[in-house]
């Protein structure tokens, strides 16, 4: 393993981080929407959310990635539609699988945080004569803040999950590591260095989230 290989791993790191960031953005938005449909029990849509959660939390991420990347090609209609432009790209498929996966787990977290809102706060809003919309706009920000500690775990899991994208030809850290390993047969060093990359990023994420938690949950300390 030489210097050039280390630079390749850095290139992979950029891909990994990009993939994490985009999936996180899409996944989080989707999770918030799904949480709202579950809370409001929107007809039909909340069944859809339930189904999505069961499906994506009950099966391995690797199967989801394969299903999304290899699956649609089976159907002639999909191959000729406009979606094929996207679905034939490994990067988009990996992002979609990761985003849906994290959305499913995050929705559970958000819903858990919502259910943990003390009954007294609901009563207080009711006593003030607020309607459902006003009540939610008061209570939701706090519920979301309480979800931060659990959500930080989800972000780290997602970053670790991006390594699976290497199985559908994406050159992230793991993709380069596997290629360098095949070239040099120096497994212990190559995977050791690749592992170091993951450990450093996860360490940074952990520390950063600890800061965010402190700020986001400051309101709980004061009362």
């Amino acid at each position, binding site marked *: 393993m030489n210097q050039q290989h280390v630079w390749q791993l850095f290139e992979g790191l950029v891909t990994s981080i990009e993939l994490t960031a985009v999936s996180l953005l899409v996944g989080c938005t989707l999770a918030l929407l799904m949480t709202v449909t579950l809370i409001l029990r929107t007809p039909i849509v909340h069944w859809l959310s339930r189904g999505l959660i069961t*499906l994506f939390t009950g*099966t*391995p991420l690797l*199967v989801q990635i*394969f299903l999304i990347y290899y699956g649609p090609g089976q159907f002639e209609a999909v191959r000729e539609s406009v979606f094929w432009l996207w679905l034939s790209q490994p990067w988009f498929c990996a992002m979609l699988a990761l985003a849906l996966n994290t959305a499913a787990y995050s929705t559970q977290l958000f819903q858990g945080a919502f259910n943990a809102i003390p009954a007294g706060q609901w009563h207080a809003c009711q006593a003030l004569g607020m309607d459902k919309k006003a009540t939610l706009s008061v209570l939701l920000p706090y519920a979301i803040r309480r979800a931060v500690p659990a959500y930080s775990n989800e972000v780290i899991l997602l970053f670790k999950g991006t*390594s*699976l994208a290497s199985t559908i030809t994406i050159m992230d850290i793991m993709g380069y590591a596997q290629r360098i*390993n095949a070239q040099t047969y120096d497994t212990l060093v190559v995977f050791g260095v690749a592992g170091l990359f993951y*450990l450093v990023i996860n360490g940074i994420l952990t520390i950063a989230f600890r800061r965010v938690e402190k700020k986001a949950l400051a309101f709980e300390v004061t009362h």
Partner: protein
Amino acid sequence: MALSGYALTLAEAGWLTIQLAFASLLVGLVLAVFFAGGEMSRYRVLSWPTTALVTILRGLPELLVVLFIFFGSTQVLFILTGDYVEVSPFLSGVIALSLIFAAYAAQTLRGALKAVPNGQREAASALGISKQRAFIRVVLPQAVRHALPGLTNQWLVLLKDTALVSLIGVTDLLKQAQLTAAATHESFTWYACAAAIYLVITLITQRVVKRMDKKFSSQGLGNAQGASA
């Protein structure tokens, strides 16, 4: 008729996945006890390396651990013996998965042991029960109840992680689906089948777990909490 043949191989592969998961669970639980013990040890020489190992294992992607164990074990054996020995993919898979499981389960066990009030140990010693006996008969049964929800969650994660061994050549559920998909050019059908089987296994486990939790909590923990309140 060809379809039933493929379905049969898929069912066999599903059985292999279950075997792999249970083997990893057993080894992982034993390892977890050692990890938890090591982390709580009074001796720095023991607690430091264990904590470092567990932290590293939890910070690495599962895929990296699996590949590291599979390819790395061959290299280590080559350095040690000078011979090219290939460790079987199944064994490497079990080692990697059980290590990952143990790293997370150790945290759960540690938390559970700490959740048992110290008064329980003191009461046992006041009654003249020896330390080991108190640990096995008094502390452990209570700790298990605290640990159960966390451990069952970890079991579900482990079950899903078994899919990774398909990448090192174990013909598990996912690998078989991959082979069948390649042979029939029906990728969606077979990957969806594999996903459905994983889902069924998960849902069945969840049901069993719920029943187990109910049984354990009704047996003591609920009463204990009621008594203390």
